[in-house]
């Protein structure tokens, strides 16, 4: 009964979505206020309905209702409750429900925080989001129904893939989808503005917080996924340039470009046509990712079970949504005004240069991901594009972007002076250069890449420090604390996010430069030393988990004769899918990770063991979290809080007239 309620809720949600996607947009076009006002209750109703469907599926998992095909396929009676609930998004159908649910969450959020928007704008935004959710609901109800019955019911389920039985599975997909789908808001704002012909500075101001929040979620989501792969796959890698990883990284790059471009549009009213294109791109790349993961056109470690029928549906949906948006763009963009002027050398131009670099980097990821498909489609042979390609192409494109990150925030708006900038930055450059050249020698090994990585990281931090000092000098207030408090939060957010990048770069550079690994054969009582730590193998015992059996090794780790820690890597066997999983043991620290994974049992209780010493590896994810924190800080800025509270849409009228004058 409960699954049928869920199914019925989805059907109702589809009906509501159809209404929400058509009438308010029509109302906005003809100026019918009654039709426009339907958007808000429709969006809230849809949220409620999809929430009901989501809870119904969760309930089916909780009570182990194996008469639901999806539940039987992705869970098992032995599976612990939290993983049963995470199994909601453990495969294609349920994760699609999560996608749609999160889309309605964002819609609901828009209805809550849009009191200050003009009625027509809000009607169009919610209408566009309704159209998107209509596509996904239709997709679910036609070819990927999570509530499909299995008659007769299965005695027990086929279990969740053991790879997914991990705390990472509980957090990573919801976070990632919050990011992916969050770009739908910026997208809807852009389409609404194109439809209404009011693409102006106010539009940029409104889009900024939504874009930043979505970006924060995406950043955290990607970091969680990377961390998960790091400890779960057992290879100690944290990024594999796999198509599915790239699918999440491309919207991130576009979103990062969008955040910076929105700053120019907000401040100067300029480059609106570019910014609006980026807003379309960020969400389009999210949709493209959905297609790549579910259609089976590319092979990936993380892909869903695939089905060409589903691939065709998403592709058609993709063609309609993105194709339609780009058509609208081609039609409306030529009429958009230019906005305010700025010099060839200015903060604005540097933000846009950063955009060019980010887009070229995005291009390299897109090209690398799709190129094998292109060649295959043209019958020109099969190739693989993997980490060596991306390392060779992506890194050189990002290096100037990181360098620019130090200069941009110090340049003046409108017109900057290069010689003057060089004067202000000469100390930062000198300090960074000397430290970056010398530090690797102190650490024991010098390579050009080590120095380059450190140079960029130190450069970002030192320039941020100079920036802060200059900023504080211009702020009124007697005490330092008072002056610090007077600096707007969006500024702190920017500095923090940039420093997050620096922390990330340090992590990548150090782990690439100094990580060591050993494959050893360890008898009980034998020791191996890596990175100054001595590991003593004290044997492996058999243990029982809730739904697996495992051999658990015990390693006593000491340093300079003193006990450091005890580590317990496991080799698990999940009987339902008869799958062996390597559960690495990791001792995390600020300056290094120790990583032990069990290989195969050898004779006499010995095991083959892989040991890693990974310096600074946690800085990679720490940097991402700092970036996201910076985003959160920026969104909490006074001006956005004011914008939420403000009721009357006074801005567009003013900017529209000004925009027309300029154009």
């Amino acid at each position, binding site marked *: 009964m409960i699954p049928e309620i869920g199914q019925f809720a989805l059907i109702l949600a589809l009906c509501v979505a159809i209404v929400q996607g058509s009438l308010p947009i029509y109302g906005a076009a003809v100026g019918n206020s009654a039709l426009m006002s339907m958007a808000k209750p429709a969006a809230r109703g849809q949220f409620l309905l999809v929430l009901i469907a989501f809870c119904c599926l969760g309930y089916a998992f909780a009570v182990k209702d194996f008469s639901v095909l999806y539940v039987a396929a992705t869970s098992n009676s032995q599976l612990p409750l939290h993983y049963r609930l995470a199994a909601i998004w453990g495969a294609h159908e349920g994760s699609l429900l999560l996608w749609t649910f999160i889309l309605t969450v964002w819609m609901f959020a828009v209805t809550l925080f849009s009191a200050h928007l003009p009625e027509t704008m809000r009607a169009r935004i919610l209408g566009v989001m309704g159209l998107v959710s209509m596509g996904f609901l239709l997709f679910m109800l036609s070819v990927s129904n999570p509530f499909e019955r299995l008659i007769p019911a299965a005695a027990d389920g086929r279990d969740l893939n053991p790879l997914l039985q991990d705390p990472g599975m509980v957090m990573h997909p919801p976070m990632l989808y919050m990011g992916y789908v969050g770009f739908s808001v910026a997208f809807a704002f852009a389409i609404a503005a194109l439809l209404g012909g009011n693409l102006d500075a106010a539009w940029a101001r409104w889009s900024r917080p939504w874009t930043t929040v979505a970006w924060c979620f995406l950043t955290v989501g990607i970091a969680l996924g990377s961390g998960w792969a790091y400890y779960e796959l057992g290879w100690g890698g944290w990024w594999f340039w796999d198509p599915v990883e790239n699918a999440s990284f491309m919207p991130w790059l576009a979103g990062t470009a969008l955040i910076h471009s929105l700053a120019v549009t907000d401040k100067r009213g300029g480059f609106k*046509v570019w910014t609006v*294109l980026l807003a*379309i*791109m960020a969400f*389009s790349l999210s949709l493209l990712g959905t*297609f790549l993961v579910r*259609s*089976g*056109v*590319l*092979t990936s470690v993380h892909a869903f079970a695939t089905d*060409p029928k589903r*691939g*065709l549906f998403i*592709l058609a949906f*993709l*063609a309609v949504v*993105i*194709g339609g948006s*780009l*058509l609208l*763009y*081609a039609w409306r*963009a*030529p009429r958009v005004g230019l906005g305010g002027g700025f010099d060839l050398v200015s903060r604005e131009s540097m933000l846009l240069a950063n955009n060019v670099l980010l887009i070229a980097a995005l291009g390299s990821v897109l090209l690398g991901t*799709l190129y*094998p*498909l*292109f060649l*295959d*489609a043209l019958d020109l*042979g*099969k190739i693989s594009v993997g980490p060596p390609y991306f390392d060779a192409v992506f890194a050189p494109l990002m290096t100037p972007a990181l360098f620019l990150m130090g200069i941009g925030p110090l340049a003046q708006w409108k017109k900057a002076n290069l010689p003057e900038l060089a004067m202000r930055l000469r100390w930062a450059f000198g300090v960074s250069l000397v430290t970056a050249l010398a530090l690797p020698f102190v650490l024991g090994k010098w390579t050009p890449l080590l120095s380059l990585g450190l140079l960029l990281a130190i450069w970002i931090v030192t320039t941020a420090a100079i920036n802060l000092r200059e900023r504080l000098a211009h702020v009124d207030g007697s005490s330092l604390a008072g002056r610090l408090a007077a600096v707007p939060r969006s500024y702190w957010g920017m500095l923090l996010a940039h420093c997050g990048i620096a922390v990330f770069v340090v992590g990548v550079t150090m782990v690439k430069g100094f990580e060591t690994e050993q494959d050893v054969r360890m008898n009980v009582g034998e020791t191996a030393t890596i990175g100054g730590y001595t590991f003593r193998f004290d044997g492996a015992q058999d243990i029982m988990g809730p739904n697996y059996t495992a051999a658990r090794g015990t390693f006593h780790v000491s340093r300079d004769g003193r006990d450091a820690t005890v580590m317990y890597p496991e080799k698990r066997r999940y009987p339902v899918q008869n799958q062996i999983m390597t559960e690495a043991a990791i001792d995390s620290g600020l300056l290094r990770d120790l990583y032990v994974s069990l290989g195969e049992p050898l004779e006499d209780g010995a095991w083959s063991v892989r040991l890693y010493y990974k310096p600074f590896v946690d800085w990679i994810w720490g940097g991402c979290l700092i970036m996201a924190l910076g985003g959160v800080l920026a969104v909490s800025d006074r001006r956005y809080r004011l914008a939420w509270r403000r009721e009357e849409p006074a801005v567009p009228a003013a900017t529209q007239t000004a925009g027309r004058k300029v154009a």
Partner: protein
Amino acid sequence: MNRFLLPLSIFVVVVGFLAVGLTLNPREIPSPLVGKSAPDFSLPQLHDQGKVFSSNELTGKVWLLNFWASWCSGCKTEHPVLMQLAQSGEVPIYGMDYKDQREEALAWLRRWGNPYPVTAVDESGRVGINYGVYGVPETYVIDKQGVIRYKQIGPLDDDVVAKKILPLVKELQAK
């Protein structure tokens, strides 16, 4: 041209490729060995370990080389097709028992039937590597000069046999 149409045109091209991509199998890797000489091998025979089977015994004949194993489920799928093809007498199919246990392989053939006049044993998988095998079953069509003319990746079915293998074999035999 309106420069604002550029994003749309790029997108249309990409969607076109993605649509074609849906019809392709990304896991099927064409062999660079087609059109090249089949690698020579001399291996013990499955039924009589004392005897050696070498590929150059077959020079002047058109033949199929089928990599299989008792542990491979796809081999079970294609087995009836092989039996039928062997009975038709159109072309001899030589077997290559790939990384298998001898007893199990013999039992497998006893149980399901033996379409091969001779089966060689590639215990280490080394001949498989020379032939670029990456998953059994795989089947090669080799011509009179010992050149590989076609490679079937995955199980053979009636359709492939009727539309690809047999016409090619006839053409090669006529040469």
